[in-house]
């Protein structure tokens, strides 16, 4: 049975430092939910509070309706995959995977079949008699995974499980994890600082910063509609350009550098300075109008070309052009006009960083 995990005003303090400042989250049963953020944002702290390795200094955590604040870690029925795998070095692969089942006093013959099944699922059934020091990083990762889900936990926690693998293996393992989670339907909470990994693997993502949740949403929503400039900057690449906003919320006039203007629908009326964010792939060169600038350097990357452009105000922006859409690479030093569609941008309050555009 998969649980919903409900976190209410969770607070964690280390002395004077507040690592988690009242976090609220509702994770649905069977969901693949990712906590994403830079190091020090509190994501691992929160995960360890759910696991029972960190005390909860304020607020509460529920599995469905049951509050688990004071439940001992070994009674929470949670599977966990650790960053460094934490394989028991003195046990074989098979014994490692069987460890949790033995603790649950599962009958011996059942342990044997369940362990065999689990090892098969992660494709390491041939390695069952090996010792951990005879395994590669990827193989250890699979053992850790099998050990965590073989006990059929109601919640599965993963703490940066792929960060110690090389790039290729990381992509491979991430697909295995995603497929496995779909098949088993266990509520999974995944911690990572790698935004690409988060986008690829999650049903929903919570972006965290300094102990706060900045945005919760599906990968697509978080990428396309960042609710604040932190999320816009952290997920993918964004160009931030200062602008002036003037007018009613239905059609505000947005002016950049007194040179380029467009209209945008806002959440509410706003007048004054703001910040406009636009992704490199949403910027394009225009012959007629746009923000004037000069190509500083162009980098040909195969399927696309990356231009670094210095705007006339001195700011540097990045513009990506797909190779298939153009006939040639522009020369360094060329004067250009950078344009974008009003649908592809977001506008943020200069002071708070909160989105003001819809």
């Amino acid at each position, binding site marked *: 049975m998969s649980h919903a995990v409900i976190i209410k005003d969770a607070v964690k303090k280390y002395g004077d430092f507040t690592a988690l400042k009242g976090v609220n989250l509702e994770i649905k049963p069977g969901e693949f939910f990712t906590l994403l953020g830079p190091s020090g944002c509190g994501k691992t702290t929160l995960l360890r509070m759910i696991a029972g390795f960190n005390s909860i200094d304020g607020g509460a955590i529920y599995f469905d309706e049951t509050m688990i604040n004071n439940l001992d*870690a*070994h009674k929470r029925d949670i599977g966990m995959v650790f960053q460094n795998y934490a394989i028991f070095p003195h046990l074989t692969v098979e014994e490692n995977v069987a*460890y*949790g089942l033995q*603790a649950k006093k599962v009958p011996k013959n059942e342990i044997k079949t369940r362990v065999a099944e689990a090892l098969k699922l992660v494709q390491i059934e041939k390695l069952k008699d090996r010792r951990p020091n005879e395994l590669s990083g990827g193989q250890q990762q699979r053992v850790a995974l099998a050990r965590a889900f073989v*006990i059929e936990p109601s919640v599965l926690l993963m703490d940066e499980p792929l960060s110690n693998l090389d790039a290729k293996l990381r992509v491979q393992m991430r697909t295995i994890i995603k497929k496995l989670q779909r098949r088993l339907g266990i509520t999974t909470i995944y911690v990572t600082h790698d935004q690409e990994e988060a986008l690829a693997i999650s049903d929903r993502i919570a972006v965290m910063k300094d102990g706060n949740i900045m945005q919760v949403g599906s990968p697509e929503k978080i990428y396309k509609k960042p609710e604040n400039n932190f999320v816009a900057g952290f997920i993918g690449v964004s160009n931030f350009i200062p602008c002036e906003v003037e007018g009613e919320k239905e059609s505000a006039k947005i002016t950049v550098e007194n040179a380029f203007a467009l209209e945008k629908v806002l959440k509410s009326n706003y007048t004054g300075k703001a910040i406009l964010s636009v992704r490199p792939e949403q910027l394009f060169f225009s012959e007629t109008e746009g923000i004037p600038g000069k190509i500083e350097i162009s980098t040909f990357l195969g399927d696309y070309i990356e231009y670094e452009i210095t705007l006339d105000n001195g700011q540097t922006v990045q513009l990506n052009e797909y190779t298939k859409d153009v006939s040639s690479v522009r020369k360094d030093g060329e004067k250009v006009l950078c344009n974008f569609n009003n649908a592809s941008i977001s506008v943020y309050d200069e002071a708070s960083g909160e989105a003001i555009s819809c």
Partner: protein
Amino acid sequence: MLKKKIKLDFWFWVKVFVVLVMLAFLIYPFGTLITRSFFSEKTAGITFENYLKFFSKKYYYSTLGHSLFVSSVATVTTLFIGVPMAYLMSRYNVWGKKYLHILIIMSLMSPPFIGAYSWIMLFGRAGIVTKFFSEVLGIGLPSIYGKLGIILVFTFKLFPYVYLYTQGAMGSIDSSLEEAAENLGSNKLRRLCTVTLPVIMPSIAAGAIMVFMTSLADFGTPMLIGEGYIVLPVLVYNEYMSEMGGNAHLASALSVIVVLCSTLVLLVQKYYLSRKNYVMTSMRPPKEIELHKGKRVLATLPVILVTFVGILPQIVVLISSFIKTNFTGFVGGFSLDSYTTIIKRLGTNIRNTFVFSSVAIVLIIMIGILISYIIVRQKGFTSSFLDLLIMFPYVIPGAVLGISLIVAFNKKPIILTGTAAIIIIAYVVRKLPYTVRSGSAFLQQMDKSVEEASINLGVSPMKTFFTVTARLMAPGVLSGAILSWITCINELSSSVMLYGGKTSTISVAIYTEVVRNSYGTAAALASILTVSTVVSLLIFLKISKGKVSVV
């Protein structure tokens, strides 16, 4: 905010137990000792009489001067020997490096008084070398007794401390640091003095402090070879023995003074180290320089010479244990008489040494593993308290610990004096730090998530500790325990205070045999200790694979 609740879990009870043990056998005895030092037979109430007596009579206060003098000189001489040895061994392709290294460790681990005893056999009044010089060559050698002898023995027994610390640091210094100095135009000697030595100074200092503290606390060596030159630990012993009957007021006061001295030294060292701590990330350890022929001999010769002198006492003892003796001394010729005599007459002592040490080592492992875990994994007040407390036995000389246990447990309701229990307690308290230090260093490097993985899979913290953590800690704890074991079987200074008619040990017997000039039996007993030590040490080196250092 929420109040911190104290959880009445497994580790809570372990902490209670460990703290109670420490209170009963370390804090309470030492507290009693301090209290005792402020009382006297003659006057009622609190008095400074004992301290006044110490500082007013030359016979007493000169011993403090003697102690500080021999310890300081020994520290300097060990530095002059240990640092160059370390430099040669870590930088040049010295012949038989591996074996020389083991031999140097062995000379450190030898029974503390065997050095003094062997030097007496060689250079003493009736010594082999002395006789040879005076009878054959007609040259009178200077007397080995007194401060010269003490310093000589300390130097060759304790230089390994300086050597081991320095050698460890030299091996971990990043070679680019030296290359940078060279690159900036420094020549070899200048580089050594301006970069290499200053950078490893904290390690050298740590080794020097070990030498100072050990020589300050040593009882056996100055007792045997010092003769008229009385140092503080010997005075403690004499005063206590002359005051027999347990009213050891003056001895208590003397003990407090000894401990104050060594605590002061330890604090100075901590202060110095806190100011000079260079964190080094050694990317490339320095390469060994390949010397050829003549130069290689030149680098090897001094190392072999020093190592030989260091190990000489053990060779002398081994050889002389097989030489025929009568009541006048060694008479020449091979014989096993010494061994048959000790088995007949001193079998109990041999049995006692191994039984007491075995019981102590089992307790040390059990308590040590728990304390190591609390210090590393259960950070908090209790952890810091234990961490501090565990250093304390380092600064208490064995004789002082012996006296403090006597004054604490020589009256109702708990009378332990004269029993085996009190000797075992002394061993456990005094030798526990080796195991705890090695165990906690090992645990520090062990990833916590392995334990968490076990708990997470539904195994309680207590069961996790026994099935996973303790099991994985075993190599670290075991190698520390072997050092504890080696020092247990060789322990003299506390045993000599605490032994009774039936609880005498090998080291006590060696001491009494030497005092009675019964050199053959003493040599045989010492050989048993030496062989046991060497075997234990080899097991240690095998288990630790060089990962855990002996100092």
